[in-house]
């Protein structure tokens, strides 16, 4: 029987991990992920998770250990963020082209410096181009459900890629909500048979070299390298329909339909929309409700899957409106705006008509993006809709 508990986002993620029955979990604690690592340790100690728990000496080893475990056929999980993720970068970069279906929560945290242990999406956004699937959650229930679904997506034969399930540090990691834990047998049935290493199968009886040196110019190396790169890019595109199918199946089985790629909120008759990613969508939707009561035809676009970038559905959503205001919880240093904003601009190239877009940056270093902030975002975006030139990016928490 499914049961309902009240817990924070880190515990919700840990329950998702427990339901997926991993064989090995390796963790190194780092704020605001630490309690997630602690919940998992507790679950292993209590026998709720029957997995090997590796307490390693740092994040670089965390992922290296999991790569070995995955090659040997284990279902694996870890969680990290911020500087931990930075320290993990070398094996992090290696995981997608090895096509290892490792699932990792990034409990997002802002990038140092200035010294900071609070939420912000700079860590996850900085590694967006490495080949991991990135999904951002809005609330505790979505965290639990997405962590379970992530294993099915990662291990899908057309995908075979590592998946990051990201949730906002502080607001989701420590925010307490009602969360339903589905029945274990039903989740077992949903996930089906586990086979994480059909493509490599580290086995002394069937020896092979994994990741051999491909060689430099003049030999077959570069062509081989390009072939694998192309394969990884193709797998990312394959992930889009798989993510959608898996979310639909989850909805059918458990009654909770989460938007797999992009959620549209009051977009059908909207003249303009705000775009959000992660937990801020809640405050954004409240602000949309308030504006609608006042007669504004505004909607909201929530990005759930950021990598692979869901170009088609983003274009569908954008084509319904005439102006967008994009709120980022991180910055793109190279563009003087936010990364989500940049992606929305790229998507617009594929639309028949370009529409004005305004960049907002907020919620850095644990700052709250309130309903009032969003009301301001809506107001400013409405001004752009009316043809006013708006100087941006606009920093919400300045």
């Amino acid at each position: 029987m499914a049961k309902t508990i009240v817990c924070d986002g880190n515990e919700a993620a840990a329950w998702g991990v427990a339901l997926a029955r991993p064989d090995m979990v390796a963790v190194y604690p780092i704020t605001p992920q630490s309690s997630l690592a602690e919940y998992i340790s507790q679950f292993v100690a209590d026998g709720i998770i029957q997995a090997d728990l590796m307490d390693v000496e740092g994040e670089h080893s965390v992922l290296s250990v999991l790569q070995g475990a995955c090659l040997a056929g284990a279902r694996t999980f870890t969680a990290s963020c911020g500087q931990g993720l930075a320290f993990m970068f070398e094996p992090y970069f290696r995981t997608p082209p090895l096509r290892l279906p490792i699932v990792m929560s990034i409990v997002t945290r802002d990038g140092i410096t200035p010294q900071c242990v609070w939420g912000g999406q700079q860590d996850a956004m900085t590694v967006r181009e490495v080949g991991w699937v990135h999904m951002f959650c809005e609330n505790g229930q979505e965290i639990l459900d997405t962590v379970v679904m992530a294993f099915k997506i990662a291990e899908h034969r057309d995908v075979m890629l590592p998946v990051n399930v990201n949730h906002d540090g502080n607001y989701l990691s420590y925010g307490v909500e009602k969360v339903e834990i589905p029945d274990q047998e039903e989740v077992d049935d949903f996930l089906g048979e586990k086979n994480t290493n059909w493509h490599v199968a580290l086995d002394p009886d069937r020896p092979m070299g994994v990741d051999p040196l491909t060689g430099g110019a003049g030999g077959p190396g570069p062509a081989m390298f390009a072939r694998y790169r192309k394969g990884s890019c193709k797998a990312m595109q394959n992930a889009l329909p798989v993510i959608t199918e898996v979310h639909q199946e989850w909805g059918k089985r458990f009654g909770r339909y989460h938007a797999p790629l992009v959620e549209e909120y009051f977009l059908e008759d909207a003249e303009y929309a705000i775009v959000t990613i992660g937990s801020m969508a809640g405050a954004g939707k409240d602000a949309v409700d308030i504006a609608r009561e006042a007669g504004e035809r505004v909607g909201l676009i929530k990005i759930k899957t950021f990598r692979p970038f869901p170009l088609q559905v983003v274009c569908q959503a954008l084509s319904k409106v005439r102006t967008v205001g994009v709120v980022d919880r991180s910055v793109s240093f190279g563009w003087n705006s936010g990364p989500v904003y940049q992606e929305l601009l790229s998507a617009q190239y594929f639309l028949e008509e370009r529409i004005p877009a305004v960049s907002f940056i907020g919620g850095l270093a644990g700052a709250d993006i309130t309903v009032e902030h969003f009301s301001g975002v809506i107001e400013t975006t409405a001004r752009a809709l009316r043809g006013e030139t708006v100087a941006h990016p606009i920093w919400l928490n300045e």
Partner: protein
Amino acid sequence: MRPQARKPFDQSTIPNDLCPIATEHVVLKTGDWRAERPVVDRDKCVKCATCWVYCPTQCIVEKKYWFEANLEICKGCGICAQECPHHAITMVEELED
């Protein structure tokens, strides 16, 4: 005699753009990089296997009465010559044919 593998992994069972793996050990002829080659004095070699232990590319092969480098793989780093306790290995410059 090392135990032999019973059945190597069948690489054709997976797409060739999936995970970079190799069931053949020489993908790259690193021997092409060599500037000097190790030449073993067979009278001095006592088969102590020091070169075999130290070789970073594991290219030392065992012959009946001596060890020598597989020149398809040996990069000519000279570690074997440095480590050989019997000074049986000399590094000789590779000259163009």
